[in-house]
C-alpha cells in the first residue's frame, strides 16, 4: 500500500465540537490522518474548495475527495473502514437506536448553544431546556447502553458513536460551566451521564482530543464578549 493509497486529511478548528467528533472517531478506528488547523477568520483556499457550500469545518479529505458534515463523516468512516472498531452496531434496529440518540446529543449541544447566546438575566429557561434534554438522554440510553446502571464497560476498545458525540458536547463541560457561570451537569440530577463522561475523559485517547480547560474557558469568554452567535 503506497503512501497515496489512504491519505486522510482533517481540516478543523481546535475548539469546534464538530471537529472533535471526527478527531476522536479517527483515533478510535486507528486511522492515521493529517490535521490542518484552520483559522476561521481567514479560511484556507483548500477549505473553500473542499466545502464551497458551507465553508465550514470539519472537512475530511480522503484521497483528495472531501466529505463534509460531522455525522456524515462518521457514517463514511464506518462504511469505508468496515473492519476494526465500529462506531455503529451491526444490527439495524440497534443502529436506528444509536442514530436516534446521536442526533439527540446534537440537540443537546444546540440547547447548550442557546444557553450561551442568552443574556445572563435570561439564563433560566435555556438552562431548564438543557437539563430536560440531559434527563431525556439519561433515561433513554440507560436501558440499552448501561444495563448495569454504570459506565463500567467504557474502555478505549469499545467506544462508539454515542461516546464520540458525548465527548464532543460534554468533554469540556467544566470549561463551559466556568465560562458561563452555570451548572450544566449535576451528578445528583444526572448521575449516569456524569459518571459516563467522567469515565470517558479519563481515557488517554479522549484526553488527547478534549481541549485544555483554561484555553477553552478563554475562547468561550472571548467569543461571548465579541457578540459571537454560537
Amino acid at each position, binding site marked *: 500500500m503506497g503512501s497515496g493509497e489512504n491519505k486522510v486529511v482533517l481540516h478543523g478548528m481546535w475548539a469546534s465540537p464538530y471537529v472533535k467528533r471526527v478527531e476522536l472517531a479517527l483515533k478510535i478506528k486507528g486511522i492515521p490522518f493529517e490535521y490542518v488547523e484552520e483559522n476561521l477568520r481567514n479560511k484556507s483556499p483548500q477549505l473553500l474548495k473542499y466545502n464551497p457550500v458551507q465553508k465550514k469545518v470539519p472537512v475530511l479529505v480522503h484521497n483528495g*475527495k472531501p*466529505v463534509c*458534515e460531522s455525522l*456524515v463523516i462518521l*457514517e*463514511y468512516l464506518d*462504511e*469505508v473502514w468496515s473492519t476494526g472498531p465500529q462506531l455503529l452496531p451491526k444490527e439495524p*434496529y440497534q443502529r436506528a437506536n444509536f442514530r*436516534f440518540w446521536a442526533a439527540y446529543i446534537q440537540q443537546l449541544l444546540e440547547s447548550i448553544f442557546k444557553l450561551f447566546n442568552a443574556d445572563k438575566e435570561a439564563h433560566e429557561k435555556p438552562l431548564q431546556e438543557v437539563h430536560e434534554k440531559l434527563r431525556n438522554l439519561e433515561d433513554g440510553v440507560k436501558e440499552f447502553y448501561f444495563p448495569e446502571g454504570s459506565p463500567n464497560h467504557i474502555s478505549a476498545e469499545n467506544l462508539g458513536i454515542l461516546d464520540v458525540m458525548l465527548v464532543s458536547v460534554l468533554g469540556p463541560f467544566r470549561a463551559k460551566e466556568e465560562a458561563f457561570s452555570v451548572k450544566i451537569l449535576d451528578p445528583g440530577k444526572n448521575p449516569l451521564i456524569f459518571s459516563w463522561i467522567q469515565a470517558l475523559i479519563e481515557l488517554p485517547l479522549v484526553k488527547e482530543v478534549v481541549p485544555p480547560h483554561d484555553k477553552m474557558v478563554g475562547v468561550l469568554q472571548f467569543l461571548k464578549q465579541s457578540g459571537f452567535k454560537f
Partner: protein
Amino acid sequence: MDNEVKLHGFWPSPFVYRVIWALKLKGIEYDYIEEDLANKSELLLRYNPVYEKVPVLVHAGKPISESLVILEYIEEVWPHNPLLPKDPYERSVARFWINFATDKGRSAVRSLFWGGGDGKKEAAEQMFDLLKIIEEQALGDKKFFGGNSINMVDLIFAWFACWIQPMEQLVGIKVLEPSRLPSLHAWVKNFKEEPIIKENLPDPERLLAYYTRLTSNLVSKPT
C-alpha cells in the same frame, strides 16, 4: 405480530410522506394509523416519548422515530430498490444534501412562514438563494437528485414539490419561479409525475386550507 409494519402519521406532514414513499417504492406492505396531533394516541406517546411526534415506524412491535433514522432503517432492512448510492463516497454526498435540506430548509421555512411581515421579502430572497444552491450543486443537470431515478435525496427535497406552494400562496411571494429556477421547477414536475409518487401526494387544496388555518390561529394570538 411477526414482521408487521405500521406507520403512525399525520396527513399534512412532509416527514410522514417521506416514509410512505420509501415504503411504497420498496413495495413494503404496512398499516397506516392517522394520528390526531391535538389528541395523540397512547401508543404514539409510548412509542415516541422524547418528541411525541410523527412519523413513527413500528416493525415487529419495535418503534423507530425521526424520519431520517426511519429512512436509513428501511434502507438497511429492505435493501432492494435502493434509495442511497452503493459507493460510500456517493452516499456521503447524498447524506450531505439530506443534512443541508434538513438544517437550512427548516430555518428558511421558519423565517418565511412564521416570520414578521417586513422580514418576509428578505426571507423569500434567502430561501431563493438556498434553492439556487440546491439547483446548481445538488441537482445540476440530472433529472432527479438520485440521477435517472428517485432516491432518498429526492424524498427529502420533496418539500419543495408540494409544501412550498401553499406557503407561497399564503405569504403572497413566489419563490420557486420557473424563470429563476428552471431545473428545480422541472424537477418538481418530474417528481410529481413519477408513478408511485403521483398516487401518493397530499391534496393541494386540503394542504392550503390546513396551513391557512394554522397561520390564522397564529395571527389571532398576541405576540
